[in-house]
């Protein structure tokens, strides 16, 4: 196994040869190398069950969770390359600084619920919950953020693009039956939905099988079209003010989002 070793941006792949046992995953092998050859090897992990989202890396160039990638996927004797995720600055070996994501998370206006029903309760219906449930499976592994070419290949887009993980979050809030915040203009102007060209790599790598592009991004694009680009929707809004069939007019672009 060839593992990326180095601090900051300098480094190289170092080859380690270790025996493996049946049933091992890539993370087990990394741990074995740590135990036998490289005690100072930096690697982030936590649950070893694909649930904490810590062990993201690139195995033979494919963004994956190391704890969910079985060694049996590879041919016997095949060299396996393990690299840190590329989109975020390197700290050491396989560990990167993912604070870009936490900064982006802060710019999303939080859930703002409708007033309670007269009996003092809030009600949601199953069919409405079902749709947003999928988005809540996200484990924040940031593999989708890593693979997204908008920021992976174009560092300069980082200030104007939040990335697929946050489109999932925004979709969950926008489609929430009780939420009253309107984030559509923000989604276009600040989170950069238009940068996404729906090439679906985020969906391909998501370990939680969230249909990021089809169920979050494209429906958001359609909502933004109604709010910003569709001339008939615009005319109908002018005539009916806020029609029941169309989302409310968008927030002016200059408005800064309240922080989360």
């Amino acid at each position: 196994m060839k593992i990326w070793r180095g601090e900051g941006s300098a480094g190289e792949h170092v080859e380690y040869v270790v025996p493996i046992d049946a049933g091992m995953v890539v993370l087990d092998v990394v741990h074995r190398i740590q135990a036998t050859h490289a005690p100072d090897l930096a690697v982030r992990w936590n649950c070893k069950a694909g649930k904490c989202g810590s062990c993201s890396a690139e195995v033979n160039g494919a963004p994956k969770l190391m704890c969910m990638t079985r060694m049996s996927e590879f041919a016997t004797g095949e060299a396996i390359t393990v690299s840190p995720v590329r989109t975020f600055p390197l700290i050491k070996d396989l560990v990167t600084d993912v604070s870009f994501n936490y900064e982006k998370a802060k710019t999303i206006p939080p859930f703002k619920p409708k007033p309670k029903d007269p009996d003092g309760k809030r009600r949601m219906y199953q069919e409405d919950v079902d749709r947003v449930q999928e988005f809540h499976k996200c484990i924040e592994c940031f593999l989708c953020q890593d693979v997204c070419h908008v920021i992976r290949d174009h560092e300069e887009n980082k200030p104007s693009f939040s990335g697929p993980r946050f489109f999932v979050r925004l979709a969950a809030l926008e489609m929430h039956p009780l939420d009253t915040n309107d984030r559509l203009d923000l989604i276009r102007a600040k989170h950069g939905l238009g940068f996404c060209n729906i090439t679906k790599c985020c969906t391909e790598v998501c370990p939680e099988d969230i249909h990021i592009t089809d169920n979050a991004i494209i429906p958001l694009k359609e909502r933004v079209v109604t709010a910003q680009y569709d001339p008939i929707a615009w005319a109908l809004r002018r005539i009916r003010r806020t029609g029941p069939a169309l989302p409310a007019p968008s927030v002016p672009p200059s408005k800064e989002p309240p922080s989360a």
Partner: protein
Amino acid sequence: MVPERRDLWWLEPLVIVVVLGTFVLYSVYAGLANANYFYEPYLSPLYSPCITANCVHPHLPIVGSYWNLSPAILIVAFPLAFRVTCYYYRRSYYRAFFWAPPACAIPDARKSYAGETRFPFLIQNLHRYALIFATLLLAFLWWDTFLAFNFNGRFGIGLGSLLLLTNVVLLSGYSASCHSLRYLVGGYLDSFHRASLRYRLWSWANWLNARHARWAWASLVVVGLTDLYIRLLSMGVLTDLRIVF
């Protein structure tokens, strides 16, 4: 940076270039040919609706006989706009032709990238209008299919009738599985409670939409094959297999 992927990531873009490229070249040839697009009772889907007076099988001759070029030129914009702005085809040609990106975790070909934030890509946002026009065209294709079972006043089934029927079913499935349609029939709602019809329509659209790519490819290939079959019949290369009752 050099990509580390060693699998056959280039296969998918290559297949897309070949299939899409073949279809585009064939339809340019067939659309400009202005001949062999009708063979009683079959009209090629590339020429439907036929809106010129000079057309061999006019539907609505709203364009006078001064138009001597192929009637397909006048209508091609509608299906073309629908496919070009389709979310699925966008994914495919951005990958295969623009290399943005050619495959996941393989670097983009260009240094700068603004996605769909600027003209001309901003126009992609009007896909729902292309959907509306494509749906209107579908009505003509269903009518053509209905006529394709009528052999001089007698009901019959030919290989051409079956091809036209398959074609129109696939094209209808392609439109019905459209992402914009899924939004317009109910996806725009935040709550489906008290909107049970829209909920049901949205659920069906979801089911179809999950298979949108398959509808897209199948309908593309069958449109081309249907035209080719009618063309070969009309050129006398093939004879139609048919049973007339």
